[in-house]
């Protein structure tokens, strides 16, 4: 990395909430600005450059145009960081992958649907190599700062590889399952603490994707014992954890 590395931010299909989470770091961004130049950041400034040391990309690939853009960005980037659920696991965009593409287009664009051709939603890693992933919907600002700190120090960032249950127990929460509420925390990658949903009494909906090597079969068994149907279980899993591998093959 050069003396003062260049950073860039891009958005594909998303709500840009993860960029707002970056801005929400507020004064903690100032030390980063002393050590790096942000050359592209639509939510905060104008400008661009020919090469980026680190690029943060939020959003999913949902059009052929997105596909071109991510390949261009990748070609100009040394370290590509996928920012948020849409970029890491296709996020809520992948919900449409389980419905008829024409119906989906008609639902959103009505009789103008032909104007907006779309492809199955997929995360960045389905199309280009991704160096670092920051999960979540939206991302956790603290994790963003930790990743930037690691990049500035030239040390690898190791994302949490354990389920939400660990942090939930550490918080002393009474398990939602014990209260009759099915929760995806058992198979979902942690990293959201201390702002995790179960601490506020809401079930985990899996926005950080699956932990490596999850026992999804056990999760489905437990949900079935709870009286949930196969459709209920799949719906729980598909909100954030659409099966992008198969989708990517189809493209």
């Amino acid at each position, binding site marked *: 990395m050069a003396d003062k590395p260049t950073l860039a931010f891009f958005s594909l299909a998303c709500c840009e909430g993860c960029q707002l989470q970056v801005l929400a770091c507020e004064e*903690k961004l100032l*030390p*980063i600005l*002393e*050590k790096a130049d942000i050359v592209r950041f639509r939510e905060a400034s104008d400008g661009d450059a020919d090469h980026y040391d680190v690029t943060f990309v939020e959003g999913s690939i949902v059009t052929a145009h997105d596909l071109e853009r991510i390949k261009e960005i990748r070609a100009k980037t040394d370290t590509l960081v996928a920012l948020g659920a849409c970029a890491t696991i296709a996020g809520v965009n992948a919900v449409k992958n389980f419905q008829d593409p024409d119906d989906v287009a008609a639902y959103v664009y009505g009789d103008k649907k032909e104007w907006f051709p779309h492809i199955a939603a997929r995360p960045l890693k389905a199309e280009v190599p991704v160096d670092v992933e920051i999960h979540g919907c939206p991302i956790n600002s603290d994790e963003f*700062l*930790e990743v*930037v*700190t690691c990049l*500035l*120090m030239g040390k690898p960032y190791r994302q949490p*590889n*354990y*389920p939400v*249950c*660990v942090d939930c*127990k*550490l918080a*002393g*929460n*009474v*398990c939602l*399952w*014990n*209260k*009759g509420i099915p929760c995806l*925390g*058992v*198979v979902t990658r942690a990293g959201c603490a201390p702002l995790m949903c179960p601490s506020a009494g809401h079930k985990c909906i899996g926005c950080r994707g699956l*932990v*490596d*090597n*999850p*026992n999804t*079969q*056990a*999760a489905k*068994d*437990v949900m079935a014992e709870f009286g949930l149907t196969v459709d209920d279980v799949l719906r729980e899993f598909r909100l954030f954890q659409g099966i992008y591998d198969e989708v990517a093959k189809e493209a």
Partner: protein
Amino acid sequence: MLPQVLKTSDLGAWVEALMAESRVAAPVLKETNVSDPTDLKFGWQYVPDPADVRLDYTVTVLGPKKFLWPPRQKLVRYNLGAGAEPEAIIDHEPHVLLGVHPCDITAIATLDAAFAKDVPDPHYLARRSDTAIIGLDCGAPCDESSFCLDMGSLYPESGFDVMLTPLGDAYFVEVATQLGEALVEAAVVRPATKQDMEAHQAFAEEKRSDFHYKLPYELKYLPEILDASYDSLVWEAIARQCFSCGSCNIACPTCYCFDVYDEVEVDLSKGCRVRRYDSCQLDPFAEVAGGENFRQERASRLRHRMFRKGKYILEQTGRVGCVGCGRCERACVAGISIKDTYVQIAGSR
């Protein structure tokens, strides 16, 4: 000091007097099950108000371990670059743990042994030496998950400064240490009468009749029974249900494994070395440099925990690794039970 009696109505005043001297942690009501108002959920907390103390509690998700060893603990602070000046953070202040059940008293004794052996752990030991323990005897098992009688944790002989026995509208107060005597001096108590002593003996007799053995063998055979079960198919069978979520370890009052990492300020000027609870059930727990993982299989991790709790910790510290509190079973979404597992392997060859 001979036994004393504290009226239940004077408990609040005692807690207040203790709080004037140091922080007091005790079980408090956390929440009530929305679908069953009789299902109360308790948790250990530093007490904000003496009226919040609930000595009628049964189980908690986490034990009082978290006051001796916080789930996330800063160990060393340092500067980056020249003049790193690392400085150990030994952070402790006097505190009282009020209402510790026998299982947790026994568990703390295991932690004491674990953190004192080999290289003594100054972070734990400093907090421990500043901790006063007021025990609370149990008259009946908390629920189906507990098997403290089997694991020999129901009748601790030491590890507490004061022991309270609930006798209806009063507590029978026994002092075990000098520190305990000082604590009791802050309470409005009266010496126990013959009738109080009889009531205490009656409590003990009832306690003996209310707890029943749940394992088909004595604790002393458990390490050998585990040994014989090492290649059993039972581990694979149970592991099919296991999420490897680590809840069992996090909730366990004797688990003492931790992970160490660095937290560096984003301006790269200084940082802290921090430790947090780790879990042998997690995929990366046994991963070493180079990416090799010597317990990659879920079943081997699950078996490892059962062996730690029933054999290895005992062999290493001389204290039981499992106190039979049942927290791991209650915390397990899949309903995996260490007690049932120890029953299941009884016939292994």
